[in-house]
């Protein structure tokens, strides 16, 4: 078998991620895909902490820690500075969680995407504010428990469709990826690196702490979320050409939900509702892919 994952480890062990952290794997894989000539802009998120406290650092590339809502705007400034100094080969990577992307950082992200500032923006999505203690974000899925959506009132609205929002900016490349499929993920990172302007990658990154799942189920969950069509893998080019990256296995959502304590309170009818919603969304995606 051809080895598609670069062997070189840029991220060091000894970081501060929880056991079974999907986000730490996402950093590791994306940096493998990009190489060392990369600068990361990281707003407040789990990855602020995972990197290690001063004076330690784990990521192996220059890191610019920045305020919560500024992953994209700081990256725009870094890129402008590098350009004017003639260092155009360096990749600028904005790296934010779902809160920093879907919620507080969406304005700066939209601004950068509209300007087409040359950067790869990665949202590693663990579906809540995990760093502050599992509060709901607009990426939290329907029905999930968080500390601000208690079991008596779980989240009653669907997850925001961030990929469609980014695709609507007509940026050159938008894609979803999962740490459960590293070859696909790294292929997309490389494609993003070769594309022009703003590129957006939405990476699902299971969080045992917040999802109330077993640390050794992280990879299983990262695969199941794709297999159930809850988080299908696809690409969008120039906001127009939608392409599925993996064919559906159509695994029932219950197989994914039952491994996570955050869904434990759900009744059978709730699971049915989720299944219906997932099927409907997947149909919508297929139509987009066909019409493209």
């Amino acid at each position, binding site marked *: 078998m051809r080895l598609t994952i670069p062997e070189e480890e840029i991220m060091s062990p000894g970081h501060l991620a929880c056991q079974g952290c999907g986000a730490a794997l996402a950093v590791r894989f994306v940096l493998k895909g990009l190489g060392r000539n990369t600068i990361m802009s990281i707003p407040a998120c789990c990855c602020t902490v995972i990197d290690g406290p001063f004076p330690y650092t784990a990521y192996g590339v220059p890191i610019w820690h*920045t305020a919560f*809502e500024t992953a*994209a*705007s700081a990256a725009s*400034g870094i890129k402008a500075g590098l350009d*004017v*100094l003639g260092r155009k080969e360096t990749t600028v990577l904005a790296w934010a969680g779902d809160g920093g992307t879907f919620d507080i950082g969406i304005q700066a992200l939209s601004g950068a995407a509209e300007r087409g500032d040359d950067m790869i923006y990665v949202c590693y999505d663990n579906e809540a504010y995990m760093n502050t203690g599992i509060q709901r974000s607009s990426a939290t899925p329907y029905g999930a428990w968080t500390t601000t959506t208690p079991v008596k009132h779980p989240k009653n609205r669907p997850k925001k469709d961030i990929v469609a929002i980014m695709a609507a900016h007509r940026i050159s490349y938008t894609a979803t990826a999962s740490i459960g499929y590293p070859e696909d993920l790294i292929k997309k990172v490389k494609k993003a690196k070769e594309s022009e302007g703003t590129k957006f990658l939405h990476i699902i990154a299971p969080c045992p702490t917040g999802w109330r799942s077993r640390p050794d189920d992280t990879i299983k969950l990262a695969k199941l979320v794709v297999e159930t069509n809850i988080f299908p893998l696809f690409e969008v080019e120039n906001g127009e050409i939608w392409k599925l990256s993996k064919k559906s296995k159509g695994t029932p959502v219950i197989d994914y939900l039952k491994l996570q304590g955050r869904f434990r309170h759900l009744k059978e009818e709730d699971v049915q509702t989720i299944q219906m919603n997932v099927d409907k969304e997947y149909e919508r995606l297929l139509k987009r892919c066909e019409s493209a």
Partner: protein
Amino acid sequence: MMKVIMGNHALSYGAKLSRVQVIAAYPITPQTQVVELLSEMCANGELDAKFVKVESEHSAMAASIGASAAGARAFTATSAQGLALMHEMIHWAVGARTPIVLGNINRAMGPPWSIWTEQNDSLSERDTGIMQVYCESNQEVQDTVIQSFKVAEKVLLPCMVVLDAFYLSHTYEPVDIPEQSLVDEYLPPFDPPYKLDPDDPHTFGSLTDAKWYYELRYKIEVAMNKARYEWKKANEEFENIFDRGYGLVEDYKCEDADLILITSGTITGTARITVDILREKGKKVGLLKIRVFRPFPIDEVRDILGSAKKVACIDRNISFGHSGIFFAEVKSALYNLSNRPPIWGYIAGLGGRDVTPESIIEIVKRTEESDKPEELIWIGLKR
């Protein structure tokens, strides 16, 4: 070259002459002409800079910080609500030690909406660690931008160049725009000791516990203190090359003055004329203009005011529940002197209300006639 330009364009020319490399800015009245002219200069190749047309002031400052961290000289400009929106990132620029220069047009904060001058916007940034310089004329605005980069890059702190809305931003005055070669002689290219560089990777701003954070704050104060010296030095070098200069403060007819007025911004020009008028009438009045507000020129203020019999401070700002802000700062600077003059605090001109020679004569008269210092006197208030 002498040119008649508006205060906003004086900021643009100052940035251009400083060879800024990245500009990130968002439009707001009364700042718009600053960025319009800079956009034009970038577009026609007069200025070799990247202009990031951000979607908010918050992003303007975040992008300026990023550019500065990458090693580029960065400039931005804003006003009032925009400055308030930047507030979080001004703290960030200070902590990150990025020497950005920010032009701020003093404008009153809403509500109610106002676009006219008042200093509460810039003074609300007092405790962030950004340096602040208040300008009196368009010439001073242009020159202060150039001086600010010189000082900011020496001490690695950002600097705010402040000018009054309309009274300066939209007023045309003759300005000597120097030869680029002279400015190049004065201001070397930006060469920060640390920057984002994949060949020498460092992490900036990571989680820092109480074991280290305290010392990092101390270093900011050390830099601010060093800036007092650097402002003096930067001004001396500036005078040598350009034959004009500005101190941290300017004292006007203070040596023999019984009463010294304190001003900042454009009220200074009015006060200077008023001092002349009163001097002709035999009144021993002097004027202290505070130009550099952060770092606060504590030694100069003590030296100049120490011998006065009475001091009257005019504030186009207010710290609600206390007093005018310059007043409070001056009073605290004088407190530990054994011989300190009594000081009267006057609020004037909020929201762009005109402060005229008559207003200043009223302030002088009231101070002269009063035996006991008052801390909060509203001039020209309709009751």
